[in-house]
């Protein structure tokens, strides 16, 4: 820790390795926007960042109510970080409901910044407070900064032709400006963004800029803060970086895959939280020749993607768990006709409608087994927002090379969370192009590649290859309809073997930590950050522990069994009730144990750490 004085007010600057801020307010208060602007600014500065947007499904829940609270947590650091932080160091609460919903996560001594103007009797009652927490001493464990944000902000905007309501809508920028001052951030990226965003509404642009600057100036001139903080840039691998969410990375991954496959991308989807952003994004890529199609329902989206794949395009559909359930019959048509399509499932808390904006890993078994008959298909899952790009590319590669539908399992946390992404060099990515069948002399619809068992891709428009396919069982080689008992048995085995052979075409499972020893923590999907951070902590404490994270859920990497057997105990934490656990135990006869939480939230590092310590202590 160093102390310098660079400010006119000679306030001391404290150097911190990592800071976690949570912005919380009404869902109409613009907390997501505020959080995203802070994230961009920190990312551009060179910090490692990790975010956790947490918002209600209602677009505008009743103002001031507990269900209407929207939060955005960002962790930024001068070192490599994997999660948005277990607990915030600073909580910004724009009203009593936001305070009530979030105060439990703020550790003792944490900084609490509240908009004191919002603590009216009405708002306190809406949040269920019988007494004002700012006055009753219940917050004395925290460092509380009461700031009349609404009043100060309104004063800064005086003279602009705006309604009171419009003025009130800008107060989040006051809070943002204050945070920028506190953490020595430039306002420039956000000022630029405001100018672009409100180019056609100069009054609104001016108002937001004034609000931002007023917040910053308040920090600079007021004496309520006795210090401000600096988080230096992180030491990430060399390259050009940008900030990216999982859904953005997913869309880009498939776009690049289509380029590298030399086939246009066709995306069919039905709006569903939290996957809709992928539809929005790909619909904007018309200049890349992307054909996007908003279907009448989930089934139609799946059917259209298969139709496009049958026509020789890279066929893609995206959904969340309830939509995956609806698509299952059509996915099986792709299994039977052995056509390459990718199904994106951005998982959310279930069952049924569940909690649409909250994260969960409940669809793994649905992805593997939620279809009639023996219906094998490859399943992949990215571990971080940036990795969504790589796994989307992988999903497309596997689908095309092995002529099979592939399910890509993201989740709400990955989809909306953000982190720095090293922009890949397009030339360094391999071609994933596969040829169409063209030779009528040798063509058989269900002849197979000897290595992968993929069948030929004969697209309509190819002279001499006219043939018929469909959902009825196919005769081996010819593809004619067949009810022959031995043929059905053979084809069932062939389909299974085809998918099993994908294991020859994917990287081995890697471990981080000790090569063999007491405890392996095995995970998949968005829990990566918490598991990795917990293992880093345990290793620093000298424990015999390792972390392995599966990106390929079907088939598993070929060395998975070997990895599992190098450790005395295996812990599989999941945001479900033990789905990977069931697969691992069944497949490898390893006495793994699970750790399950389904709260609609990511794991905290501390709970994984604690469970691991218990296991290592023989409990």
């Amino acid at each position, binding site marked *: 820790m160093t102390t310098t004085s660079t400010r006119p007010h000679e306030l001391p600057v404290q150097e911190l390795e990592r800071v976690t801020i949570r912005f919380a307010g009404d869902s109409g208060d613009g907390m997501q926007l505020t959080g995203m602007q802070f994230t961009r600014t920190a990312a551009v500065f060179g910090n490692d960042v990790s975010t956790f947007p947490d918002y209600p499904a209602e677009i505008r829940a009743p103002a001031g109510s507990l269900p209407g609270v929207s939060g955005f947590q960002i962790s930024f650091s001068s070192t490599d970080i994997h999660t948005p932080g277990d607990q915030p160091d600073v909580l910004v609460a724009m009203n009593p409901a936001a305070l009530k919903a979030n105060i439990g996560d703020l550790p003792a001594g944490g900084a609490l910044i509240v908009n004191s103007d919002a603590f009216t009797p009405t708002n306190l009652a809406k949040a269920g407070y019988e007494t004002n927490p700012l006055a009753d001493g219940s917050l004395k464990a925290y460092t509380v900064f009461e700031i009349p944000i609404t009043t100060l902000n309104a004063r800064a905007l005086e003279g602009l032709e705006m309604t009171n309501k419009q003025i009130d809508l800008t107060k989040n920028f006051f809070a943002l400006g204050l945070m920028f001052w506190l953490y020595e951030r430039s306002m420039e990226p956000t000022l630029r963004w405001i100018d672009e965003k409100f180019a056609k509404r100069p009054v609104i642009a001016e108002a937001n800029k004034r609000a931002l600057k007023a917040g910053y100036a308040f920090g600079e001139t007021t004496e309520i803060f006795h210090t401000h903080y600096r988080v230096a840039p992180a030491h990430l691998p*060399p390259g050009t970086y940008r900030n990216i969410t999982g859904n953005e990375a997913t869309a880009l991954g498939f776009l690049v895959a289509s380029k590298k496959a030399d086939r246009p991308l066709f995306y069919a989807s039905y709006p569903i939280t939290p996957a809709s952003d992928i539809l929005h994004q790909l619909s904007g890529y018309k200049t890349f020749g992307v054909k996007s199609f908003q279907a009448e329902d989930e089934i139609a989206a799946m059917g259209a993607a298969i139709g496009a794949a049958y026509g*020789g395009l890279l066929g893609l559909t995206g959904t969340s768990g309830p939509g995956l359930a609806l698509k299952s019959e059509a996915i099986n048509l792709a299994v039977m006709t052995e056509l390459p399509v990718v199904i994106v499932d951005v998982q959310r808390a279930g069952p049924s409608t569940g909690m649409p904006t909250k994260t969960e890993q409940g669809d793994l078994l649905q992805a593997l087994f939620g279809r009639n008959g023996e219906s094998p298909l490859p399943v992949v899952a990215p571990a971080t927002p940036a990795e969504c790009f790589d796994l989307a590319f992988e999903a497309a590669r596997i689908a095309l090379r092995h002529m099979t539908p592939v399910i890509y399992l993201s989740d709400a946390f990955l989809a909306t969370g953000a982190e720095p992404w090293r*922009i890949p060099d397009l030339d360094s990515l391999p071609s994933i192009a596969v040829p169409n069948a063209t030779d009528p002399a040798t063509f058989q619809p269900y002849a197979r590649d000897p290595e992968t068992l993929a069948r030929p891709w004969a697209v309509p428009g190819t002279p001499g290859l006219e043939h018929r396919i469909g959902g009825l069982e196919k005769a081996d080689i010819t593809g004619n309809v067949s009810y022959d008992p031995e043929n059905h048995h053979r084809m069932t085995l062939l389909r299974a073997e085809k998918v099993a052979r994908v294991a020859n075409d994917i990287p081995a499972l890697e471990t981080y930590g000790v090569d063999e020893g007491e405890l392996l923590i095995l995970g998949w999907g968005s829990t990566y950050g918490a598991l990795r951070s917990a293992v880093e902590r345990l290793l620093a404490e000298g424990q015999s522990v390792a972390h392995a994270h599966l990106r390929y859920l079907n088939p598993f990497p070929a060395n998975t069994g070997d990895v599992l057997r190098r450790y005395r105990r295996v812990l599989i934490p999941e945001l479900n009730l033990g789905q990977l656990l069931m697969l691992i135990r069944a497949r490898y006869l390893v006495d793994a144990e699970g750790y399950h939480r389904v709260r609609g939230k990511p794991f905290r590092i501390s709970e994984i750490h604690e469970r691991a310590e218990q296991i290592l202590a023989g409990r």
Partner: protein
Amino acid sequence: MTNPTTPAPLSPENAAVIKLTRKDFASDQEVRWCPGCGDYSILAQTQKTMPEFGVPKENIVFISGIGCSGRLPYYMNTYGFHTIHGRAPTLATGLKAARPELMVWVITGDGDALSIGGNHVLHAMRKNVDIKLIMFNNRIYGLTKGQASPTSEFGKVTKSTPAGTIDHPVSPLSVALAAEATFVARSVDTHTEHLQGTLERAGFHRGSVFVEVLQNCNIFNDGAYREFTDREVREDRMLVLEHGQPMIFGKDRDKGIRLRGLHPEVVQLGHGITEEDLVVHDEKAEDPYLAFMLSRMWWPEFPVPVGVLRNIERPTHDQLMVDQIAAEIARRGAGDLEALLASGDTWVVK
């Protein structure tokens, strides 16, 4: 790969160049419908019609759902896809959007199109997807051995409705019109010449086609249309629609359809009533009221209309998709992938 955006030639002139015959469109698969099924005739007329379009057979795709009709693609020597129940329009929509140059036919039945697949028919029609949907209407579930369908008449006794169905039937053509199909027609399996002519017109239409073929299931619903389709009575009990012509029918062409207010009525020509008093068919009318009226007419109150009820032009879904992409590229230039990846705020770590 190439992704041609201009549809292949579709013209009688081109047909003379390509010179395909009915036999070229018969596959090597043995046809397996019940002997006497109306589907045989529909298949035959379909195979006979195909050479007329001037489309190479590799550019023709037949996509079907589930039901007896679903087998038709196996018997066509074109590309074919026998999909799942009710979903054929979805695959056809995806295929046509992906490959606008293909000629895509959807083969479906009353259960497939109007029950399990009703939603997809609605949207394929309103989007004016350039697909030719042919619905075999036998007013029964045949492949599952005889349950009531959405077009079964009220009170019909079937295996699933032993005391008679309590469900009011839908008129397929009313549904197609309400769904904004741009080509809506009806024909009959055994009226081979009329059926062939209807399929031909359907094939040349650009946009969403809905053709209802009244088809006899001789096993589970034999004689469903006999009362008005039999040779001896059909001229008196059916109305053959012709664009621009007054609605006249009858063996002696002595009966017609006149409008009384908003309602049609059957009139006998003569005794002061002349052709001038009759409704003139206009399949190109911008508003669909006349077509809708025709879609409600049924024996014995009225002669059953066959022919083209509606035939209008509207930009097709696939063409609009292609145009929109072209317009965006013209406006903003072809996409630069490297620039896209590096868009937004970036920073360099050394």
